[in-house]
């Protein structure tokens, strides 16, 4: 059953250089309880996609100019500010990349969790404080009773991210948007935090959008993957299909470019050049200047989504 569906989303930013089309008509959906990986390089628009769902794009300079965000049957873009507040942290939660700056330094961890609980009044919690302790316990923070009284600066990086997860999941949302949740963490701590998210996902039956640049993390945690490039979605598929049989030249290049720790590699795949800027993106397919298989049509026409069957969708003229 579809939980969230994004249709033809366009987002633009007014920048110093001019108008930047940061999202150029993206489509994807996510089913109840599944994990969707949103993967791409810096500037591809994966983070702003996450923020758009919660309508957290600062306006101005940003503006959603077109599209729909359907969550549990309702278009979030038509919601009032008050209705959005009930959805944020209640039915959809979000966590951010850098746990060192994403918690308010002047309130205790417990206070910050309690604030969310008081606001959304989730079912099945006897008192706010019990909810706080339970939330901290659920992310495996030892001695949650006394740790709740700590301030963020008394927590280590990994603990802060777990505290953040506790806060955001204390109200049992049906969707979690995790924006690079482990990028700032060491690999041993990353493993712990991903484990915590996976456990809670199973327990709460929630869906997760995992935004990351790390294809290793995607391979280990996601059910489906959407590969983004320069404000567009290049390819969406089941995780196994995507890694085994990538169709889009960008996906193929990306997968071949990762130096792997589990086997020796003689050569890495090379995608020449670098990510284009948003103000004057290449015409046609935005990837064509870097694409080894570019054809004439790629320089003129923006590719449409092609369904290769079994939910494998690719936006590339090679398959058109």
């Amino acid at each position, binding site marked *: 059953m579809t939980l969230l569906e994004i249709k033809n989303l366009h987002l633009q930013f007014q920048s110093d250089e001019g108008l930047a089309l940061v999202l150029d008509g993206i489509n994807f959906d996510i089913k109840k309880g599944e994990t969707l990986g949103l993967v791409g*390089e*810096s500037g591809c628009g994966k983070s702003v996609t996450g923020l758009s769902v919660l309508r957290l794009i600062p306006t101005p300079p940003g503006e959603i100019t077109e599209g729909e965000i359907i969550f549990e049957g309702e278009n979030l873009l038509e919601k009032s500010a008050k209705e959005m507040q009930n959805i944020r942290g209640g039915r959809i939660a979000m966590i951010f990349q850098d746990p060192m700056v994403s918690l308010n330094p002047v309130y205790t961890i417990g206070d910050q969790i309690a604030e969310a609980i008081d606001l959304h009044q989730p079912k099945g919690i006897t008192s706010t404080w019990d909810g706080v302790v339970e939330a901290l316990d659920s992310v495996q923070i030892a001695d949650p009773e006394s740790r709740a009284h700590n301030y963020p600066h008394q927590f*280590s*990086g*990994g*603990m802060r991210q777990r505290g953040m997860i506790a806060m955001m999941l204390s109200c049992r949302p049906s969707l979690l948007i995790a924006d690079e949740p482990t990028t700032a963490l*060491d*690999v*041993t*701590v*990353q*493993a*712990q935090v991903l*484990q915590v998210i996976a456990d809670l996902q199973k327990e709460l039956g929630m869906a997760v959008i995992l935004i990351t*640049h*790390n*294809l*290793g*993390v*995607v*391979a*280990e945690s996601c059910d489906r993957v959407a590969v983004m490039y320069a404000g567009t979605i290049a390819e969406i598929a089941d*995780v*196994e299909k995507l*890694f085994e049989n990538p169709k889009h030249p960008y996906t193929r*290049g*990306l*997968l*071949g*470019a*990762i*130096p*792997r*720790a*589990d086997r*020796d*590699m003689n*050569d*890495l*795949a*090379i*995608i*020449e050049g*670098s*990510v284009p800027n948003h103000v004057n993106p290449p015409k046609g397919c935005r990837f064509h200047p870097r694409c080894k298989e570019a054809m004439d049509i790629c320089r003129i026409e923006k590719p449409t989504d092609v369904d290769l069957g079994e939910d494998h969708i690719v936006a590339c003229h090679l398959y058109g």
Partner: protein
Amino acid sequence: MLIKVKNLRKEFSVGGTLFQTERETVKAVDGISFDIKSGAALGLVGESGSGKTTVAKTMLRLHEPTSGEFIFDEQSVFSLLPAELRKLRRRMQIVHQNPNASLHPRMTVMAQVSRPLKIQGIGDKSTHEKQVLDMLQRVGLNPEHARRYPHEFSGGQKQRISIARALITNPEFVALDEPTSALDVSVQAQVLQLLRRLQSELNLTYLFVSHDLGVIRYMCSEVAVMYLGNLVEYATKPKLFANPLHPYTQSLLSIVPIPDPKLRHRDRKMLKGEIPSPKNPPKGCRFHTRCPQVMEKCKSIEPKMKQIEEGHQVACHLYE
């Protein structure tokens, strides 16, 4: 052996003002030894706070060592006078991590890449320009780039400029301090491939500092694993990846995300907690607070580095 490091220590003291006398000592690097053969690439891998970057910077005397010895081609680097050291610098160089901070923002590419030639008195003005242009071409840049300022380049290009500046004096030894960790995967692949090509073309000796085991595996012939200022394991690449001995190395290799969904259900050796503060490291083996195989003696006795077989050393009480 081109490089011999013996018992290197580096302590930083933090705090301590006119009236606050309580200085704290951070043992960033606490007595490590290793050799690098001419033309080899030693990977130094560890989490943040392990001291790996400090090792590289202390060897180049960007930090003054607390104690220990660094023999570079029969010369004791730590006992050189400033003028002698400056002269030696043409033979050993460093490439920094952050492409946005490692170039002089006010110098053109030509000015900064030719600067080492001027300082070292290599050739004269008339030859500098040609040397720089040759080097730019070598690292994949155009002659027209020489006139530009750093802010006009992408991250990957800036890293290429850094590499050009480091190699212009034709050094034998280059320390690479996380040279690609700030770059996107596709750009990282370009830079790694370039570094490998340059190593074989110019017969360079690398010390490659990284937290990424995949990158280390791609780049290096030997690997040293650091934890909290100590070396815990040191082996040739095939031995380390095929048969990791130290529980820390074993854990790292088992939890590093692999971009292959089929390997998702492999056994992982998760570690508890996070790396302790180097201000107050644990007694005995520094890893004992997180070690899944900790024994009583680990808590009090520091294990010594021990050769298990040819080309494989480990510092762990399990192997005594």
